[in-house]
């Protein structure tokens, strides 16, 4: 199962890296969003820098992820991948994990330079430490956001108005994970190192809920009885 998942993740990452447009567009989008947020918030002084860093980074990533998630099954539907998988009875958990792993790697690759850039722009005291902390926290948030984003991409892919439907469902459904992520980030940045409160626990709880729902519902989606 792990071998299948790893293989699928590699194939998906290869597809993402094969086209410059697919690789560069989320980076550019996130950069523009970050600059716009920075411009809107303005200079707030050293005290507010840590809070702004968390808010800006999560918001920017939130919008960028929507692009990455929405296209995560683009090629699969075009190539009739799921019909093939249903016919061959491939383990759906390995497909889900492989896809999720590829999306995770891609999103994490976007978030590290983004956080670094945001830390420098806001003049945070310890840029390296802030980038590392925030990146790790975002990685934890991604664990829950990715299954949810992928599921929404799956269910909206068959509709003609998916460009409207996807954000309509993605924004409200990701609110619990986003809120707990931002609040954990604020705790991490404003309290002493290593001190985590209930928000981080809540984030982990939502990660577990979304992963479980993601796998169970993905299995249902690929079930042969659900084929058209």
């Amino acid at each position, binding site marked *: 199962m792990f071998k299948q998942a790893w293989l699928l993740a590699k194939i998906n990452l290869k597809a993402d890296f094969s086209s410059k447009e697919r690789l560069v567009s989320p980076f550019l989008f996130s950069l523009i969003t970050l600059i716009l947020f920075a411009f809107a918030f303005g200079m707030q002084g050293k005290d507010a820098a840590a809070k702004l860093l968390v808010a800006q980074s999560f918001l920017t990533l939130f919008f960028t992820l929507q692009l990455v998630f929405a296209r995560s099954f683009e090629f699969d539907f075009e190539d009739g991948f799921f019909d093939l998988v249903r016919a061959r009875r491939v383990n759906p958990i390995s497909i889900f994990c492989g896809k999720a792993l590829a999306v995770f790697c891609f999103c994490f690759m976007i978030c590290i330079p983004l956080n670094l850039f945001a830390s420098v722009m806001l003049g945070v005291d310890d840029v390296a430490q802030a980038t590392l902390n925030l990146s790790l926290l975002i990685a934890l948030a991604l664990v829950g956001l990715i299954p949810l984003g992928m599921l929404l991409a799956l269910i*909206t892919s068959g509709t003609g108005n998916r460009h409207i439907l996807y954000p*309509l*469902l993605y924004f409200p459904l990701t609110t619990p994970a986003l809120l707990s992520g931002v609040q954990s980030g604020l705790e991490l940045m404003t309290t002493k190192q290593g001190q985590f409160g209930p928000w981080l626990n809540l984030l982990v709880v939502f990660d577990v809920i979304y992963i479980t*729902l993601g796998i169970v519902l993905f299995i*249902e989606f690929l079930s042969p009885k659900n084929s058209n």
Partner: protein
Amino acid sequence: MLMSKHNKEFFLGLALFFVVEICWFFALFIVPAEKMQGEVYRIIYLHVASAVTTFLAAFILMIFSILSLRSQADRWMHLGRASAEVGLIFTVLTLITGSIWGRPTWGVYWTWDARLTTTLILGILYAGYLVLYSSFPHGQERSRASAILGILIFSCVPVIYKSVTWWRTLHQPPTLIREGGSTLSPEFLYLLIASIFSMVLLSLWFISVRAKNLALKHEIESLSV
């Protein structure tokens, strides 16, 4: 003369409306005014009952979604859609009655309070479910997509319920279900429970009738094709 099935359903609905009306009559004219808030507090018999029904609709939607994924029968899909419609109506009712209550107590109709915002999010999700449902033609794909979303929507309910304890909000903390029992005195509490119970039964009746209408509509459409 024996009553037909439709007549029975009609009279059941009428009886439920009558029970709700009796609760409102007691709420407006029989129970005394509250010491702190005065007459305005009487809206809780509609507001709280609507809010509980909103959450219950999300739970029912999840149950029907699971059944829809399991058995693929159209019946579950129609019941799921009916639950989302009823859920949306009661969410709007909760927000409107909350705003009416908020004006004299908080001084504003709307504030970006955690409970209000998360309830609004639930309303948007119900609307999203209905948009998603309508985006597909009748078939397995619609059934599968809407069932998956129906299950996901319920994951938001615990956040809405706990929002008043997780965040500092204007909205009052739980008064009915809390450690150490309800803070309401019995004269208010029993009527509130009766209001909630009657509203929940009425919403179940709405769901049942609407699901039958949807099934009938589908049957007519398939015959005309």
